[in-house]
């Protein structure tokens, strides 16, 4: 660990962290990162594994693979929304390599950005990389690349926190504060920092959970829209609920007002529908991804409704 953060401190801007490499390597091949060094952290053993901390929830090392998370009984029993979300990432092969840390840190995606250098030269560079205009929102100065990872919305529903380490120490922050909402500088992680652990609080344990993902193929595809819900019920009424969406904004977002809308109610179609409408309002999909933005927003509504119904009815 010390050695790793040491390297990061030393090379600062010219270095990239490689965990599973499933995102970094393809991106480097496309010339999206031209850093001089790559820091391979795969062998830092202390960052791997799931450690329940009775009374304090559970701690997941950043290098824990998604396949491992998907199969972990403890998580399936107590934090099922994470299990569900992890199981939808990419394909089995990629889940064997991809890590939860990498998934949280995953670069935002855009059809005009995730292309080869030759392609981008032909098209013209954009704000996110080497250019000064945006093909998606012409005239704007902001990048809208879509945050397209599956587990962060689930983690947001669980009020997860992340631990970040650098040569100058360790800090901890709520995952909801980790993302900036900008497509280019999308995460609050300095180049000399390492994401080391994810914490799921005890208070989020044993929530029912459901993750619904819009994808064209049943495997491989990144989410084009994603909805995670975690819900606690008592006597048929909602005691607490949180809902987060992904792939339709530059950050995964908790949908505000969902808790209030659901709390104390019995879930029925109409209620689920209004949650759907609320979620769709939070979604700001643009032409960063396949399928049209209008369709993707509409699916946030449908998937939210379905996810809320499913979680209320125990899947």
């Amino acid at each position, binding site marked *: 660990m010390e050695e790793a953060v040491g390297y990061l401190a030393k090379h600062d801007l010219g270095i990239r962290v490689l965990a599973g490499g499933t995102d970094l390597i393809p991106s480097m091949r496309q010339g999206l990162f031209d850093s001089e060094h790559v820091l391979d952290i795969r062998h830092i053993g202390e960052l791997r594994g799931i450690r329940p901390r009775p009374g304090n929830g559970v701690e997941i090392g950043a290098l824990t693979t998604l396949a491992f998370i998907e199969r972990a009984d403890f998580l399936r029993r107590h934090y099922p929304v994470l299990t569900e979300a992890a199981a939808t990432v990419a*394909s089995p092969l990629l889940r064997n390599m991809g890590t939860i840390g990498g998934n949280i840190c995953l670069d935002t995606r855009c*059809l005009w950005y995730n*292309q*080869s*250098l*030759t*392609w981008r*030269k*032909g*098209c*013209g*560079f954009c704000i996110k990389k*080497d*250019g*000064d*205009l945006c*093909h998606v929102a*012409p*005239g704007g100065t902001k990048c809208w690349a879509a945050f397209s990872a599956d587990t962060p919305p689930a983690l947001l529903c669980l009020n997860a926190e992340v631990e970040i380490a650098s040569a100058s120490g360790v800090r901890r922050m709520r995952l909801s504060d980790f993302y900036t909402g900008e497509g280019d500088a999308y995460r609050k992680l300095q180049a000399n920092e390492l994401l080391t652990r994810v914490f799921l609080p005890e208070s989020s344990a044993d929530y029912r959970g459901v993750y619904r993902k*819009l994808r*064209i*193929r*049943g*495997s*491989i*595809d*990144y989410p084009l829209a994603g909805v995670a819900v975690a819900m606690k019920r008592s006597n048929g009424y909602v005691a607490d609920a949180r809902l987060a969406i992904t792939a339709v904004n530059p950050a995964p977002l908790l949908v505000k007002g969902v808790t209030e809308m659901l709390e104390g109610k019995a879930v029925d179609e109409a209620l689920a529908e209004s949650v759907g409408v609320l979620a769709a309002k939070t979604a700001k999909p643009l*032409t960063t991804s*396949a*399928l*049209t*933005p*209008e*369709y993707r927003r*509409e*699916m946030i509504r*449908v998937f939210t409704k379905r996810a809320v119904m499913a979680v209320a009815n125990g899947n």
Partner: protein
Amino acid sequence: MTDFSIIGKPIAMVDAAGKTTGSGKYTDDLNLPGMLVGRILHSPFPHARIKRIDTSRAAALDGVVAIVTGKDAPNPYGILPVGHDEHALALDKVRYVGDNVACVAAIDEATADQALELIDVEYEVLPAYFDPEESMKAEADLIHDNKPHNLEKDYHHVFGDPDKGFADADHVAEARFIANEVTHAAMEPHSTLAQFEIDSQTGKRGRLTVWSSTQVPYYLQHKLSLVLEMPMAQIRVIKPLVGGGFGGKSEVIPLEIIAAIAARAARAPVKITYTREEVFWAHRGRPRTIIDLKTCVKNDGRITAVKARVIQDGGAYCSYGVVTILYSGALLGALYDIPNIQYDGYRVLTNKPACGAMRGHGTVNVRFAFESQLDELAAKINLDPADIRQRNLLQPPCVTVNGLRVQSYGLPECIEKVVERSGWKQRKGKLPRSRGLGIACSHYVSGAANSIIRSDMPHSTVNIKIDRDGGVVVYTGASEIGQGSDTMTAQIAAETLGCSLGRVKIVAADTDLTPIDIGSYSSRVTFMAGNATLRAAEQVKKQIAAAAARKMSCAPEELIFRDDSVFRKNGHVGTAAFGRPAEQGSSASVSGRVEGQILRGSLQQKRKDEGPKDWMTFEEAVVAAIDFHGALTGTGSYAPPPEARGGKHKGGGVGPSPAYSYSAQVAEVSVDEETGEVTVHKVWAAHDCGRALNPVSVEGQIIGSVWMGMGQALTEEMVWKDGMLMNPGLLEYRSPSSVESPEVEPIIVESIDPEGPFGAKECSEGSLAATIPAIANAIYDAVGVRLHEVPFTPERVLAALRAQRGQKKINLTEGIDPTAPAKFREHGGSLWFRGKGPERHPLDPARREGPAEAAGGD
């Protein structure tokens, strides 16, 4: 004779283990001493004149051995004699984003890539055309100067009396259908390795050898000779294992010639393997097609006339385009009995990669439109969709109104079978809401009756040589591309000669060794190379029979070749199954092969002593034949008969085939009415392949066709923005994964074609075209919406559903229309953008001063 010992049996591909163990070699696996890596510089502009290319900075880079540009090989070429419009490297103009500009041969990939960045090209950007209907209006800045209105070719055919047909009809359906552009997505990216030898006598540059992932070694040899100005005899093309072609390797692809030019300049072997993005640029896939279709029927469902206007967005070069647009019209015939046909076809040039031949070449998109419309008409007149098809059957043998000769015709049986197996009669219309069944039919040629090179040479020739050890070597130009042509060849040779499959060795697709074959495309190999193999084997067999008959004191006609032995039809000794002692069985072949050398002498002696026999081993017969005739070789060739070559009208050469395959399919789908997602649950696919030489292989081809058709039906689509391909990779270009692959029940129908080898016809393309309309019709059955644009992506399906319910229109499909270029250009990618920002990336073309200023208008 229907009792076969080798054909008709499920046999593992003869090259299966090589592929599964990794011991088999594909082009990219090959390495030569001193080999260099070639990388290609591609155009960033869809349409531009090249003013100047300066390679000096790149040439100065350490590790760069040679840089070649268009000037190094200025001769044009193209797969069709009428379409010699391509240069391996652009000479004066680039015509699509990705067009080839220069090639660097360097000691490794990184160096070559670095060098590409140092090549300075000055372009004068020209207005570009992306939409075929717009392109047809072009007056200036033509894509090719000799093609006014950017029209590659148009055809206007009238067969019968369409006007009368329309007048006689009781019901008419008319609509525009659109099928978007798809590509082959073969697993193996194109790869070529080229090497010049030093002539051992003169010390000068000598022969050229090219290893390439190609479906057509002979065409490659031919085009190389044209471009490099070398006699064909000086060029050897070898096809190693090929990881799928589907038509994408059925013509000469730029890298194949570029590798040779680079090797010549570098004086060293050069290998180029495309990246996936380059494969998308090389393309040659199925063009975006706009089909205005009108079909008329009587009250009883009989079709009276069809009128089709087809526009194909062909991309920047001709490629197979003229053939594609002709197939689209010609294959309106030969499936059903249509008395009157009017066809207007336009092949249009646009500034995109060239479209070419792809599985189901020319027929697929029009078939989607036609079968959908027929379904609509059936609904209109309240007829079962299966019945309307049965009411329009041909009565073969016959010649269709557009000059196609049909002999074997398994379509009726295909329809019967899928109707029966799918429970059509009981289940159709009775499934739960959102679930439905759809039926559609299709057909395809078993090779073109007229080859694209206008000549009278046979389409396939096969040589066979048998040595004293009884090993059979078959030399064929047919290209195994994963479809099983080597296995088919071995089976036909072994069946004919009555020897075991293990004796047969296939030497294929090496222009130095194998006779000319025009390649693996248009489903021609089994029919044509198969017939040539059959004829070659029969010729050898005759020689063996003559010698064996002498030894057995009987007439050659009395002999039967089977199970590695030769015996008399009604031999005296014969008590066992085929007139020879049973215990000799197959052990003879095994020991014969292994110990042949040792046994031969003594066996011969023994046989001699014993006098005339009623049977001999295959090997003994071979030895007898060689002793009698000298060398034992045979040759056979195939050319389609004149009767099958079609009508005399302009363009009548495309469409005719010696035999057509037939297919009928039923698809069962469900539609999620809130999301528009379509799930295909099962497809029953009956295919008439004449005779199934290798049933597993046939089933594999049927399943593969259905799967590929489903990809085009639901998910695959090349998306364009202003000439930029938005999805040049297999992540965003979505071929189905195993998760959404439906169960496919292949049903083999055997109509035994009178001219096919053992009655066989094609089985690898015909099925594809039925899948798309079967799914479309099933969607209609499930939710009552008729989709006119393929693929049926969830947003398109949902938009149709909402329209049907009169729900508020949210414009769900806006923005993915590939023909809406205005948007991107308005705000300007930097492609059309001038001036702003000193921090622009140094490679940003907009930053360059000079002629790029001219960018912008059209």
